[in-house]
């Protein structure tokens, strides 16, 4: 077994003056330097010896990373350094992106959310990330500064594996933009964990739905799953069923079953793969049912 008190290794803290400087440093020290936002995962991993970086490059405060803004046309833009609690407390977020607010409230503890960031949660690329599902379903796009300038990374194609993303050495995520959600949308995040405060998700189910007259069912349903695959998982096959068939108990059950069949969870100390699969089915069904009830109440 590993050393019970690894201790935090010596790390050099770098505070660059510009994005260019930060990017250059990160590229020049690939494999031993990483961008640093809230640090809530970073310090734990460094202390445990899981990460061996020598440099932490503090990118908070560089060119817009400290701002969060809402524009009725363009939507919500969350700077990389903005703490989760600040996002959750915004009236515009609670009004227009309630699923994100709900997901944020399930992350660790209030104290930790004073430091943790949404963009950090995304770049960390843990399959268990609670806010990632909501950001994906809202159509989130990351703005990334890299060697070739600024580019956009849609979240749907951003994740490659646990801890692995499209980001390359020298890349710095600047902000996340969530476009204005469709009218009448309803969301729900159900997190199954071993306790009610602080645990990681054994399974997380995000559902977002809104009326869409172009679809046979009259509604568009979006589903994202946490902790059941190497990456945060969308379930297009289940979404398709919900777009094409009349929404009722049987359709919801069918979609939930598809969600279960499409995931590939692992066993760990928090739960077995078998339990996770069952939870995907039961909680997808529960989330879809609750969302459906709200949609029909509104209509």
């Amino acid at each position, binding site marked *: 077994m590993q050393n*019970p008190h690894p*201790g935090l290794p010596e790390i050099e803290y770098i505070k660059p003056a510009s994005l260019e400087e930060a990017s250059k440093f990160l590229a020049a020290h690939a494999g031993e330097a990483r961008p640093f936002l809230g640090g809530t995962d970073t310090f734990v991993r460094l202390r445990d010896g899981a990460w061996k970086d020598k440099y932490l490059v503090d990118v908070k405060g560089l060119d817009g990373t400290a701002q969060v803004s809402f524009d009725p046309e363009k939507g919500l833009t969350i700077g990389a350094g903005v703490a989760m609690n600040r996002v959750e407390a915004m009236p515009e977020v609670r009004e227009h992106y309630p699923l994100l607010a709900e997901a944020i409230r399930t992350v660790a503890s209030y104290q930790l959310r004073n430091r943790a960031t949404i963009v950090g949660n995304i770049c960390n690329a843990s399959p268990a990330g609670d806010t990632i599902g909501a950001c994906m379903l809202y159509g989130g796009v990351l703005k990334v500064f890299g060697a070739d300038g600024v580019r956009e990374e849609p979240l749907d194609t951003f994740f490659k594996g646990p801890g692995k993303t499209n980001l390359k050495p020298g890349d710095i995520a600047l902000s996340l933009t969530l476009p204005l959600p469709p009218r009448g949308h309803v969301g729900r995040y159900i997190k199954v964990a071993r306790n009610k405060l602080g645990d990681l998700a054994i399974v997380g189910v995000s559902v977002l739905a809104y009326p869409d007259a172009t679809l046979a069912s009259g509604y568009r349903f979006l589903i994202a799953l946490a902790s059941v695959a190497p990456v945060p998982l969308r379930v297009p096959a289940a979404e398709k069923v919900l777009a094409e068939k009349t929404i009722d108990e049987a359709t919801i059950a069918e979609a939930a079953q598809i969600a279960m069949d499409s995931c590939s969870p692992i066993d760990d100390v928090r739960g077995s793969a078998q*339990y996770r*699969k069952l939870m995907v089915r039961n909680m997808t069904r529960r989330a879809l049912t609750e969302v459906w009830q709200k949609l029909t109440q509104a209509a």
Partner: protein
Amino acid sequence: MAILGQSVQRVDALGKVTGKTLYPGDLNFPNQVYMKVYFARRPHARIVSIDTSAAEQHPGVLAVFTAKDVPVNEYGLGIFDQPVLCGPGSSKPYADRVRFVGDQVALVVAETEEIATHARDLIKVVYEDLPVVDDPLEAMQENATLLHPDRGSNILTKYRIRKGDVEKAFSTADVIVEGEYITPVQEHVFLQPEAGVGLIDEEGRVTVYVAGQWAHKDQEQIAHALGLPLEQVRVIYPAIGGAFGGREDMSVQIILALAAWRLHQRGIDRPVKIVWSREESIIGHHKRHPYRIRTRWGATKEGKIVAAEVELIADSGAYAYTSPKVLGNATLMCTGPYEIPNVKVDSYAVYTNNIPNGAFRGFGGPQAAFAAEMQVNKLAEKLGMDPVELRMRNILREGSVLSVGTPIPKGVSIEKVLAECALKAGWQKTEMGWKAPDIQSIDPKYPHLRRGIGIACAFKNVGFSFGAPEQCWATVELIGKAEIETVRVYHAGADCGQGAHTVFAQIAAETLGVPMEKIELIVSDTATTLNSGSASASRMTFMAGNAIKGAAELALENWNNEERPAKGTYQYRPPKTTPYDPETGKSEPNFAYGYVAEAAEVLVDTETGQIEVNRFVCADDVGKAVNPQQVIGQIEGAVVQALGYTLMENFIQKDAVPLTTTLSTYLIPTILDIPEKVESIVVEQPDPIGPYGARGMGEMPYMAVAPAVCTAVKMATGVWIDEFPLTPERILDALGELEEEGEA
């Protein structure tokens, strides 16, 4: 003025809430150095060699100590079977072996903690791995690998009870219930991980500041390992951040003393400080014993329990710790607080390479009570009789004869306690007998949610059992001229956070008729106080209370005889107890008991397997609530800790290697995971020999939680689950949900 029975402000309240109180890890001395431990981190191996040269040469390192530096390389609470440091060159045979992951191999002392940590990682240990024994049943086999070859067997302790004729009685029983119960390991998770400072005091004594539960026993064990006379060792307890039994055995005590002493011998007089991380704490101290209990009970259709047969197997882990005593308790309590004419018990504590198991609130009682109370509830179901009614027909009363063939000491109140709990929980006493509340298990609006209620009760000894020497000293000094101005109470007893010191002051004030403000406490220092025994076995209020009352009365007598200052020193010795007869178990096990009954209402989500405890009732006879607020605090704390044990806490060891060594993998209940309110019923039926009638009570509310909850879950779901923690997965598995999915 009646200070007794008042929720007076705790003597430690102001210091703790303002942050002024110093715990062992907060202590800093000028010129101090820091120590890190090299832990074995493998479950079973012989150490071939240790190379400390790189660590010793590392700049900033003062010393590296190994087995060859320990004068008498053994320790233990009763059985000296554990090396202080494992490795070659030891003064004791087989001390070159590591037997669990937390065995200590080397100590590094350095100028800073960082240097010590770094140098610790430069130590090279060559191991020769030995076969790992992680299952007590395997360990009991004849050909099993021996943990302690000099002992000839992995069976550390066994007891037996033979009362009446069990087989004959079973043949007269109308119903028989058989069960096999498995209880889990539990980690204490006290707030303050092990820490302390070792130094040579102004009188040349090897002195250790540490959090423990019995200062004089720590002193004894340190002196033994260092080969020093007792008076050359001093142990001081600053504030203690929780204990729950987890500080009964040595952790950092001996190594702090060893380091300070060896440095001193090299002409270096610098205090040595150590603070364990949570991960070090989790592998470094013992856990609650897991038990496998196979049992068979028989009753007549009139509801008379006629026979109980029990086999208990406890995993002791790598060393004895308090296993023999914990097993002794479980052996007595596995037949519950009932008078059963025919009893047969065989019990075993067995060495394995798992983390040692030892003292933890309840001390074997909760495991035994789980089996006993589940059996009674199953018998009630099978008889079609209310579970409270069945209990009332068999419960211990004044004069009842225990399974060990002797009458229970006077002051038996379990009948009253059970009745109060049952009434509060919704039971009714009718002409037809006790009747359970009508709870609908299914709510048609939410068909996936199921509701149930369960009840259980238990008894637990107060004080040391089975012939263990039991005593407690106190000294009270009265200072003043015409009237008493100051009262000095000298007492070694540990305040682990339970509020013992406040109780000490209250009992002194009450006995002397002076206000609390006049009491000055001189506590928990072997240089100024006499042996109090441990803060365990729910004994501190009872034992210290009697000792302080006795000392205060003596001092008052001397005061009235014009002695100034007037001093009284008193040793309280309770009635003698006797050990189990090896063949029949006949004994006088205890001098006092506390009694508890508990009821739980649960809501089970059959889609997730998650359980909510909506309501919890606990009735506990405390004899006399010296400080009612503290009593309620103990009840609520014990219930919450036991709910964690029952529902959530899942300590996983694979091949004797723990997988849950952090608080993110080993979870305990948070504020959101516990019932909104624990309904505490404080019963006060005086103990005939308790101070002002007080009984011990710190463990009792822990005792019957698991069986109450498991029975409530049975009522909710229709399934008996005989193993906990009741993780959601275990619930769904019991409901057949996981199986179904496996096939799909």
